[in-house]
Each structure stands twice: as structure tokens, then as C-alpha cells.
């Protein structure tokens, strides 16, 4: 019975983490290039329960009771890389990616990857992201001079009609190894080098909205809330049963 108390506790802890992930999705429903997080919960490995000190079975020394899960835990966070909607901004420096892949920005911690294309032209004429990191082309930072430039769908940067650079767009062998770092940035923690994505186009003058579906998140939130409530009810019930066992059994009169 004490084991039941611990199992319901793992349920409550897991639901709280799921709630954290859902809330993070909800508040980022208007964040440029945000991709939805999905926390996957899973039950602990089965364990085999056996009867001890039971002498009714003569043949089998330790008779089985059956398998038991000892609760639930957060197995992993999966990022949903589904395309977000496009929002037209008319700003030349802003871009959105249609299809797989990330823009590359140079940060003090090394290269980072982002879907947020709300860039601007810096005072030195370089393309920078909202936090001031340089957006990378094939040959490093992109110097466009002023915001009077155009970008083709393949990512070629044209200044005065001449191609001067190509925006670097990359993807990775295993997107499950991408890690979110905040500030709309991702890092890659897996093996293998960056690759060029196939069929990805760059849209100038657009930004990509978040791919969070608010309705879905609210529904998930309700589910999590009720699951949490059930775990809580179970805790209360087990506690009451334990209370009976401790206080009422054996009471005389």
C-alpha cells in the first residue's frame, strides 16, 4: 500500500512536468519560429511481484503474483518541427524558411541554429538576428550594406542585382538531437555534420509564426489536469485506507 502512495506520487510529478511543457507552448504561441515541445511520459520497467512466506504452494518455491509498473516518468521531450504559418512583414531583412532546416547564427558559444528570421541590418551593414548575432552565409557574416537588397527563394542574396552571398540553411542527420537553448536558438548535440536540406525555400519579407495549436494545447492541459486530479484522488484514497489499517483495525469497542 505504501508502494501505491509512491506510484501516485510519480504520476503527480510527471503530470506537473507535462503541464510545464504545455504552459511553455501556450506562452510561446506567438513567438517567431517557435516549435512545439511534446513531453513523452512512460511507465517504469515492469517488476515481477512474488509471494513470500506462503506455504500453501508446495511445488513452487516462490509463487508469482504478476507484473507491476512502479509508476511513470518523463521519457523525453520531442520537438514538433512541423511548419509554422507565414506572416508577411514587408521588411526586406526578414526571412522565413519553408521546409526543413535552420538559419545559422554566430554566437559567443559557437554556431547556433534558428527558425526565427526576424533579422535586421546592423549599423555596419551586416545581417543580424534580434539578439544581435550575425546571420551566416556560405562565407561567414552577410554584409548587405543597407536594407535595399533581395533574397531569392534559394537563399541567394542580391545587392544591386548581383549575387553577393548565399544564406546558409542547414539541417542535421537526427533532429531528435537538436537541443533548445532559449532565445529561439537550437544547438546540435548529436553525431554527424550539418547538411544542406532538400527542397527548402527562403521567403524574404515574411517571418514564420509558432506552430503551436492553442486549441490542442488547451485540450492537453485539461487531460493533464484530470490525470493529475486522479492521481491526487488515489493518493487520498490510499492515505485513508492506510489510516483505517493503522487506526481502526484492532480497535476494541
Amino acid at each position, binding site marked *: 500500500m505504501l508502494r501505491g502512495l509512491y506510484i501516485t506520487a510519480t504520476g503527480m510529478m510527471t503530470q506537473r512536468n507535462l503541464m510545464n511543457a504545455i504552459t511553455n507552448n501556450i506562452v510561446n504561441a506567438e513567438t*517567431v519560429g517557435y516549435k512545439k515541445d511534446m513531453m513523452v511520459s512512460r511507465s517504469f520497467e515492469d517488476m515481477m511481484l512474488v509471494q513470500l512466506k506462503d506455504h500453501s504452494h508446495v511445488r513452487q518455491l516462490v509463487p508469482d503474483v504478476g507484473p507491476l509498473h512502479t509508476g511513470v516518468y518523463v521519457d523525453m521531450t520531442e520537438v514538433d518541427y512541423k511548419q509554422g504559418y507565414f506572416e508577411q512583414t514587408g521588411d526586406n531583412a526578414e526571412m522565413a524558411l519553408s521546409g526543413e532546416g535552420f538559419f545559422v547564427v554566430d554566437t559567443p558559444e559557437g554556431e547556433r541554429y534558428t527558425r526565427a528570421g526576424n533579422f535586421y541590418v546592423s549599423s555596419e551593414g551586416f545581417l543580424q538576428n534580434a539578439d544581435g548575432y550575425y546571420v551566416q552565409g556560405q562565407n561567414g557574416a552577410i554584409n548587405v550594406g543597407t536594407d535595399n537588397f533581395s533574397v531569392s527563394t534559394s537563399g541567394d542574396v542580391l545587392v544591386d542585382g548581383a549575387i553577393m552571398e548565399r544564406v546558409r540553411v542547414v539541417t542535421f542527420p537526427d533532429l531528435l538531437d537538436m*537541443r533548445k537553448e532559449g532565445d529561439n536558438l537550437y544547438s546540435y548535440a548529436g553525431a554527424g555534420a550539418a547538411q544542406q536540406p532538400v527542397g527548402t525555400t527562403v521567403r524574404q519579407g515574411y517571418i514564420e509564426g509558432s506552430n503551436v495549436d492553442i486549441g490542442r494545447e488547451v485540450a492537453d492541459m485539461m487531460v493533464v489536469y484530470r490525470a493529475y486530479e486522479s492521481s491526487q484522488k488515489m493518493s487520498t484514497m490510499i492515505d485513508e485506507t492506510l489510516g483505517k489499517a493503522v487506526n481502526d483495525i484492532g480497535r476494541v469497542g
Partner: protein
Amino acid sequence: MFQAAYSAASGLSAQQKRIDTIADNIANVNSAGYKARRTDFKDAIYSTLPRMVQPQNGINMEMGHGVIDAANNVKYIQGAVNITEHPLDFCLEGDGFFAVEDSAGEVSYTRGDAFSLVLEGDLAYLVTKQGEFVLNNQGERVAFSGRAEDLVVDGNGMMKVRVYSGETIPDANNPGGVIATEEYVDIGRLGIYSFPNKSGLTSIGTGRFQETEVSGAPFEAESYLLHQGALENSNVNIAEEMTRLIRTQRAFQISARALSVADQMEGLANIIRK
């Protein structure tokens, strides 16, 4: 309290800031030369949850901690050109800003305004409604002798003043007589400047912007068309702002809902043992 409550609170405050920006834009829908702003968000830091089974590393266990407002940039999209036919109304189509200097010598930049004239002796100075002097491309105050109607500015900002000379010819319909000849005298070019990073300009109100380190130094703009007798409307697109307002308001509401659900969950935890 638990993380979801703090994340939800960060959502409320970020969405609130965006609603403020939208309200500002909508309020300035009729302000000549006003440029709309847009608030962008970014996700806040992530932390790694402990994984309770093997393998403990190498698996994505990132958990987000809410949202931050990342940028609140002015979008220098062209506003509609509104013809007024008043000779001292100026506006720009394309890139650029007029440079204006206040009495203390402080220079700021504006997308255009209804200018007027101030007389000092024989000279008429071109000034803004706030009394700032409009500068030419040499950084000098624009002045000429003549009337407002005599100032003619072409699309490139070249200024000419109509000068009357010669004898007046008596005319039956006109007591003062009609002027024999008129000619146009060059008085230089209006100073139209642009910046490498216009988003870096500081807005100081009344449609004025100031140069900052982030914006870079002003340079003479090239790709513009100057209109005399016209004003630039605000570039606020009301349909776009309303759409964004509705979206932001929903995001705000649902963040509030998440906060309330988080609170109820805390309440449940609190009554496990009554």
C-alpha cells in the same frame, strides 16, 4: 509554486507588452509620418530534467521556462501618400528622413511634416511645427527670400525659388500689374538622410527619430522620391493590427487560463491530506 505558474506569468507580461505596442499603433493610425512598431518574442531559458532511467544522458529532456519580449522594432514600411497641395507639406516615398535642427542645435530626423516659414529679416526659414529648422544636404538651415508659393522642390530634393524680375506691365484686371519675367534660382538640395540600421534609431515622439550607436551614422539617401504638397500617412495597417490584437488577446487569455490551472493543481496537491 511550480514552473508552469511562472511560465504562464511570463506569457501574460510578454503578451501585455505586445498589446501596449498594438494600442500605440492603433492610436497613431492618423498621425502623419508615424511608423508602426512590432513586438517580437523569444523563448526563455531551458533546463534539463533529470532522466530517472538509463541512459541518463544524450536524450532530449529540455523543459522551457516561458517567453520574453525580444524586440520592439519600428517597421519602416512606406505609408500612403496623401496629397494636400500645400506647398510646404513634404513627404518621402522610399528611403530617407528629413534632418531638422532645434534651437539648441540638436539634430533629429523625421519622415516629413507640414512645414512652415519663419521670417528673420529678409530671409524665410523653413521650419517644422515645433519650430525646428529644416536642414539642407550641407547641414545648413534652409532659408530663402520669397513666399511659400515661390519654393519649388523636385523629386530629388533640389530646391528652387521663383524670383520675379523686370518691369511690371500694367494690366486692366490686375491693379498691381503682371510680372514680366520670372526665373528659378537654385538654392541647394534638401538634406535627406538614411541609416544603415533604421531599427536602431530612437523614437523621441512627434514622429522624430534620433541617431544612436546602433543605427550608425547618417548618409545621404539615394532611393527616394520627394513629394511637395503631400504628407505621408501613418503606415499602420489597421486590419493587420486588429488581427494581431485578437491573436495576442487570445494568447493572453490562454496564458491566464494556464496560470489558473497551475494554481488549481497546486490546490489539489495541498488537499491530498485534509
